[in-house]
């Protein structure tokens, strides 16, 4: 069965939070809604849960319209950002609450709670109250409460954002493991693009109430649909060059000193609708930096070097444009040095300046899974 979000809009007063959002995914997929705050991702999740009703549009589970069912009637489970554990109940009763409401037999309830607790390694905490638990433990209880009901859909609203960095990495793996074990369709909301990249089967990048791109993590990273996605996904953010025009088989960035982009052989761009006002993008990871002259490379001066751990980020000014490149941390490089930047043409992204859409054809799209 597929889950289809069909043309959902949501208006709060005069604010359009969601404008015509449509998504379709199949069972067992791990879908992430990612975007900056205020992009509508949490609202979309709440509409899926039934806590919010859409202004227009419908949600389909197979051929069943569920858009106007009450939250309880949808048989879904949700994990909240702040966990929302019932403070007056111990861990066991927190997890069993949904089953009790649904009048599941006591034996069955006990078995399911104990099973889930074992999977999440919280079986020694069942008699504790939520206030006696650490953040990570509360997180697991909240997850367990969602699991025992065996819903057909998990909704996770930034479940990791209240954890410290180290625990977040652990829980990220844990969530992935639970998803693989239960194979329950999951919709996950986060503003952290790294979480989205590492966990999802597919990512819906949202901005200003629209889904900007809905694709696999690889495709979102390698072929961002538009400038917003290009800037949002990837860290450090993509280098952006405005005022790029195609002429005589070359790409030129206008400016105080025009810059010819080193894209030997433009055949990759042959089918693209190249204009004379485009934005070029190249990820810092895709730039090769040399300390001696390289044929066709952009020459510039090193402005800043930041050590990121295993690598360094080097900001180079080329004809008045600042470009960042990621280099090995061992490379001896300092401010004021000359540097030559080059990159594979295949790694270059081109967007229309007005529509901000990617003008290049999707590379090997048919071979990507899930499309």
């Amino acid at each position, binding site marked *: 069965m597929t889950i289809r979000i069909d043309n959902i809009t949501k208006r709060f007063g005069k604010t359009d939070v969601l404008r015509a959002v449509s998504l379709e995914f199949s069972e067992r997929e791990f879908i992430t809604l990612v975007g900056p705050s205020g992009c509508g991702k949490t609202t979309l999740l709440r509409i899926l849960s039934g*806590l919010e009703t859409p202004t227009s549009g419908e949600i389909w589970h197979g051929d069943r319209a569920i858009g106007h069912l009450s*939250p*309880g009637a949808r048989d879904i489970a949700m994990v*909240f950002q*702040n966990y929302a554990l019932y*403070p007056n109940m111990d861990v066991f009763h927190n997890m069993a609450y949904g089953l009790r409401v649904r009048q599941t037999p006591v034996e069955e309830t006990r078995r399911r709670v104990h099973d889930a607790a074992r999977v999440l390694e919280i079986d020694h905490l069942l008699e504790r109250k939520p206030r006696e638990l650490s*953040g990570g433990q509360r997180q697991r209880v909240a997850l367990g409460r969602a699991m025992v009901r065996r819903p057909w859909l998990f909704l996770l609203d930034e479940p990791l954002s209240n954890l410290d960095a180290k625990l977040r990495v652990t829980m990220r793996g844990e969530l992935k493991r639970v998803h693989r074990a239960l194979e329950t369709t999951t919709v996950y909301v986060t503003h952290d693009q790294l979480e989205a990249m590492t966990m999802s089967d597919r990512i819906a990048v949202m901005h200003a109430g629209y889904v900007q791109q809905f694709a696999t993590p690889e495709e979102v990273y390698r072929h961002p649909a538009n400038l917003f996605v290009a800037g949002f996904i990837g860290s450090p953010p993509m280098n952006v060059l405005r005022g790029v025009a195609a002429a005589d088989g070359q790409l030129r960035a206008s400016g105080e000193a025009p810059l010819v982009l080193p894209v030997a052989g433009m055949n990759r761009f042959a089918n693209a609708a190249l204009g004379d006002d485009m934005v070029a993008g190249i990820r810092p990871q895709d730039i090769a930096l040399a300390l001696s002259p390289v044929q066709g490379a952009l020459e510039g001066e090193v402005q800043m070097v930041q050590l990121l751990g295993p690598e360094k980020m080097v900001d180079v000014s080329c004809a008045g444009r600042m470009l960042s490149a990621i280099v090995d941390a061992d490379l001896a490089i300092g401010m004021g040095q000359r540097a030559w930047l080059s990159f594979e043409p295949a790694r270059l992204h081109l967007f229309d300046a007005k529509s901000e859409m990617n003008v290049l054809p999707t590379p090997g799209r048919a071979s990507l899974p899930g499309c």
Partner: protein
Amino acid sequence: MTPMQRVRATRWAGLAAAYAALVAITLVICFPLMWALSTSLKPKQELSAPPTMIPHAPTLENYRHLLTGKSQYFGGGSADYQPSTAPPQYFLGWFGNSVLVSVGSTIISIVISTLAAYSVTRFRYRYRMAVPYFSLLGYMVPSIILVFPLFIVMTNLGLTDSLWSLTLGYVSTTLPFCMWLLWAFFRGIPVELEEAALIDGASRLRVFWEVVLPSALPGIIAAGIFSMIVSWNDYLFARVFMNTVEHYPLTVGVMLFFEGVHVDWGLMMASAVLMTVPMAVLFMLLQRHLVAGFGAGAVKG
């Protein structure tokens, strides 16, 4: 002295001073209570003697008289002085009146203010914010200003001299504050708790009963204690609304121990102690529910 020792000495001196101050304040506050207790345990003859903190011959006679309703002290057992009323015989009745009125008004106050506060925090409707602010404004008006208009209301309702007038009168003074207190409390209960329960499949009513109310319990108890104390200690309303001796609550009734020039301090103080005990016991029983941060752990702590 080494610097370390000096630091330690300074800290000790500071602690000692702080404790001395606390002990002094406690003594000042507790003295009237202890004096009442001491007086209530003294036999009649000892009352006129030079005052002592510890009774020479402690006796429970004052209490016995109050609880058995005998009036020997008025008239000292002789026939030459018989007061028009003999207060001790009413003591248990007054006590019962006080309990009825306090418990009744507290229950009404709590039920209404809990529902009102929940509605104001969770539902959207026009002028909803006017409710808590106006109720606080109402609470700021001194009772003495309210008591005569209320008396007229009670007269029109035909309730004067009935316990209902007191119950409703106390509701009118405690409800606004309880409402304000619970409003603040409900605002602190994350709405996600309710949403989680809704998703778990519970009905709105069930969510309110099983999730919201238990989370709000410390606030409800605090409001309840407040309401109990106000109703239990009120003198003004009872003085104005009630005429019949049998209908008095304790506060007004106890004043009858000032019978002209004849003041029976022993009985009076025993009454005071017996009046204090229920509130103290109530407080001790409920105190553990009042611990702040009861709800901590529901959401990120």
